[in-house]
């Protein structure tokens, strides 16, 4: 089982499109996991049918019992997250679910049994069959919810279970990572065998990718690289190449900037199925390089 995650730090660098194409290229000997639970997109292109959908419940949420609350306000100062507010006019106290972290500190200070504790429904996870006869696992966090790191863990765990049941030992788990370098990203890449970092060849894309590489280093994950949107600035392209050389990060290939990419997406096609031979070949060569690198 080879777990390979595609990450970039910056959003819109091509993570989803490239990881989907890689998954399609490997085909039935792989499964796809979309760990961008904030904004899952891979299913839009890949899914054919949902096989299993289950709620994800994690942690707690607190509410005020209007019946019991005497509006004393002790809970307001107990909350470290500023989630509890009093309405100036009605004096009524409410907890804003968007800011409540579910710690329960309010419970401890309430003498009137006016704090209600509820299980926190954060979203759903899905196991689906795909248009290319593989399996994918993904999740949708309820917009505004927390706990994305835990949901990422769950999705990855489900992925490993399915892999063990249905895929040959030398197969792949292809992981599409969330943007950033915080909790969701760490949950998405920790313990993978390889991280394919997609460096968008722009100043900000390069800046962000370096931070992902730094996190991967801390987690001791081997990194390979792909440069996307190359050719916009030869200066940035060169800086990236120098950086990769200096830090001894293998380059799997370069994808030039091309207006065509968004059109391919809009036709609901995988990049690798593009009728543009240049695009298609650049991807195939990158994927072959990854496969060869992993075999070594």
């Amino acid at each position, binding site marked *: 089982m080879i777990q390979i995650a595609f990450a970039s730090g910056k959003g819109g660098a091509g993570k*989803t499109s490239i990881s989907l194409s890689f998954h399609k290229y490997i085909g039935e000997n792989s499964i796809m996991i979309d760990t961008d639970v904030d904004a899952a997109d891979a299913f839009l292109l890949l899914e054919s049918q949902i096989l299993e959908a289950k709620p994800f419940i994690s942690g707690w949420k607190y509410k005020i019992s209007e019946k019991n609350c005497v509006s004393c306000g002790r809970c307001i100062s107990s909350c470290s997250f500023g989630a509890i507010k009093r309405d100036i006019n009605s004096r009524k106290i409410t907890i804003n679910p968007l800011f409540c972290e579910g710690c329960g500190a309010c419970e*401890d200070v309430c003498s009137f049994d006016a704090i209600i504790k509820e299980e926190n429904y954060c979203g759903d996870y899905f196991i689906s069959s795909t248009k290319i006869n593989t399996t994918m696992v993904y999740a949708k966090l309820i917009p505004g919810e927390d706990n994305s790191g835990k949901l990422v863990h769950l999705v990855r765990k489900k992925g490993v279970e399915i892999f063990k049941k249905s895929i040959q030992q030398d197969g792949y788990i292809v992981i599409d990572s969330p*943007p950033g370098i915080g909790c969701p990203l760490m949950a998405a890449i920790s313990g993978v065998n390889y991280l394919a970092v997609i460096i968008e060849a*722009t100043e900000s894309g390069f800046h962000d990718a370096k931070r992902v590489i730094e996190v991967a280093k801390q987690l001791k994950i081997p990194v390979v690289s792909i440069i996307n949107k190359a050719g916009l600035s030869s200066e940035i392209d060169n800086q990236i190449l120098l950086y990769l050389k200096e830090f001894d990060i293998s380059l799997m290939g370069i994808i030039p900037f091309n207006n065509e990419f968004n059109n391919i997406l809009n036709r609901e096609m995988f990049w690798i199925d593009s009728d543009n031979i240049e695009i298609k070949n650049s991807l195939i060569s990158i994927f072959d390089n990854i496969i060869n690198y992993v075999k070594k």
Partner: protein
Amino acid sequence: MNSKNIKVAFSSGKGGTGKTSIATHFAKYLSITEKTAFVDLDVEEPNGAIFFKNRELRKKETVSRDIPTIDIQRCSFCKLCVQKCNFNAIAMYKQSFKFFYELCKSCNRCQNICPNGAIYQLKEEVGEIREYQSDNLFIKDAILKEGSVQTKHLIQATKKISDNFTWTILDSPPGTTCPMVETVSEADFVVLVAEPTPFGFNDLKLAIEVVKKTVKNWAIVINKSGAYDSIIEDFASKNGYNIIEKFPFDRVFAEKYAQGEFFYTQYSEKMERIKKHILEAL
């Protein structure tokens, strides 16, 4: 509404739609005539300041958060802290404790309920806030320490900013969770930057869900506009959502962006229209 301090957040569910480039350009445009601050709240990947080449660093400050520890001499091993921690961040084995700080949310509940006053707080560094000046524009951003997962404290510290500005432009992190909510909840007006692709459209719908719950005034800007705008336009008109501006998909735009350069002069009319729309809405 206090016209002296208008906070506008640029946000989107999907990354890479152009939040930062439009937000930086809007801030730059405003700063020519009005007192403006640009605040980058994408603390995981702060790259807004990059565009302001002549920026001068004025201030740097470390941000820490509270993490609990225990004075074992005062502890009666009642285990109340372990039982009450909803994040399972405290474990007790025989007469020793282990704190899992990556799970701890710094709620201070353990300290507050300890009957012996045995728990006290240490500081853990989560990142660094930076302030810059670039011509007339004040810039603030923060950078999460690599390996840290505590974005919330850093974002909250970063968004504290003086009311002296006529405009405060907030650049939001991508996604639809905590960090994004922290940003849009601060704003008087939210601009959702969307790109007309299936992924961009899907993530726009998610972002709208959050924004509707959080602020009264918001609108959509289409970036990388082209042949497929109708996927967003049809949806917006069906639901009565406002699309206030469009920026074309343009290689020159992308080249300038790649080098971290400004191109706002070409788009000053568009920036003016966005500004007018915001002022009218408020």
